[in-house]
């Protein structure tokens, strides 16, 4: 991924900042370190995760846009509940976060669409 001499985004936390207690989250099954007082988004960015979701119709990757709870582009699944805004949710110890949730109603265990319909209504909708 890193062509043209771009450095990898590791260690994005600014050194001079006083932080809350260190905690551990699980993101897509892997442990990620965060600090109390951070939002889920900040913790994800600090660990190099930019891709938060996949769009419903054309299955494109999406990341955050506004950072202040308006655009809803940063929705992730937290502790089994889909569509939580990463930018407005504070981290808590042992949070289980899933990025890449596709269609919200497809991912929720109680509301599965029939397989035939998933992503197939894209073209005909206009």
């Amino acid at each position, binding site marked *: *991924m890193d*062509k*043209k001499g*771009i*450095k*990898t*985004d590791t260690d*994005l*936390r*600014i*050194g*001079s*900042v*006083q*932080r809350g207690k260190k905690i551990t989250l699980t993101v897509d099954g892997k442990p990620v370190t965060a600090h109390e*007082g*951070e*939002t889920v*988004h*900040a913790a994800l*960015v*600090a660990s190099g995760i*930019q*891709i*938060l979701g996949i*769009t*419903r*119709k*054309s299955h*494109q*990757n*999406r*990341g*955050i*846009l*506004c*950072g*202040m*709870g*308006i*655009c*809803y*582009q940063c*929705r992730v699944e937290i502790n089994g509940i889909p*569509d939580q805004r990463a*930018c*407005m949710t*504070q981290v808590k110890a042992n949070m289980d976060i899933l990025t890449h949730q596709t269609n919200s109603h497809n991912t929720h265990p109680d509301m599965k669409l029939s397989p035939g319909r998933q992503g197939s209504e894209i073209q005909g*909708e*206009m």
Partner: protein
Amino acid sequence: MTVQCKYHVIIVGCGLAGMSAADTLAGKGLDILIIDENVHAGGQLIRKVPKKVPWFPRMEPDGMKKKGFSLAQRVNRLSRETNIPSGQGMERLIQAQVLGIFNENRLLIQTSSPDKGETMVDVQADHLILATGARERYLPFKGWNLPGVISLGAAQILMKSHGVLPAQETLIAGSSPLQMVLATELLTNGGRVSALLDENTLKKKFSFLPHIKNHWPKLLEGGFHMGKMALAHTPMKQGVRIVEACGGERLESVIVAKINFKGHVILGTETTWPTRSLAMGYGFVPNIELPVQAGCDVSYDKDKGGWVIQVDDHLETSVPGVYAAGEITGIAGAKKSHVEGKLVALSILEKLGKRDQAGVTDGKDSLQGEYRRLIAQRRRQMDYGVFLNDLCRVPSSAYAAIPDDTIICRCEEITMGQIKKSIGQGFHTTGGLKKATRCGMGRCQGRICGPVILDIITALTRKKPENIGASHTRAPVKNVGVGAFLNS
């Protein structure tokens, strides 16, 4: 639902306007509720800085941030932080969203309590202050939906609230003065700025000088930022626009081109900047959704940043008992919000017959004097707003020239081509286009694409925005889970 508790005053939004209103109203024996979506008081400007103060002076000649931080501290001290309102004293409801405002100033609020989870509360106010602030404005380009393309504000929030850099190296673009602020913040915090790519030409910037000669603190601040960037050898390009953001899984590079005096891209001037992080912004849009839902009249004024809430000199809206303060009455920056917060609080104190407690010592004359002083200050800041909105404004031709395959509505994935086609079929209002294409029907409820679509319709039909109309908003004005209804 029945009204759970009543307040003398409810303030929606705890930014500069909301805080300065709360501060002025505090200690007068009133029951006050301040509602905000965030955990911390301060809004978008005053974000907690858990940081050791650097040795160099704060680059802020007008001192608004300093004032703001002490205001936030005062509001924190004076109010009680809560998740469930009780109706007593001054309370600050955190991480809550107002879903709608109904008859007799009844508010339906979504909140979350530690034991119940998401739930609803129904509260009522004698006087309601709406200080919902502003958000950023965008100029869509091909690939603006790639992960790694963020707003200027998002990059600032990451640093200011969380001490996290958006990336090791960030490219900054757009037309907003926030670009410079962000560049300085990145450099100060050990980040790198690949370049600052400004839509505005130096000529355009200088042509504004006569208009803001009375706002020297802002000019000085701009000078500070430029100096900081020059010292860091940050490339600064003027009069350029993003043509495309490229990348597969995520952003990898950005193609920019020069623009001519008419605002058209000059072919053959394209250059490519490799980057994994692009922060961009094109000015500000008032968050008028909640006041519109409440029934407040709006008016269009390009000098105020678009559709704004109409208010009288006492900042009362067309709905009796509902007041508006801050950016929603016109984009003009922190100082205007601060002044309006005070002004709206004085109006309410006068209505409540607490004139003698308004903090102005003797009687009616001096209160009127204070009013006049604040109104004059407000007008002065409005002048600055004219400059600010002019500076950020992207020419109409830029919206007309968006390529057909560019996504406009990010939630519903509606492209410029689809929108153009529907405009061609006669859908010339944001409401009509929404029905024709679904743009603005997604999660953000048109907050991101709405202003863009208004500009696109204006550019393609040559209609005036005031004739196109503001979009309608209905309750709930924000996304709410069914669980919240079930829990209440």
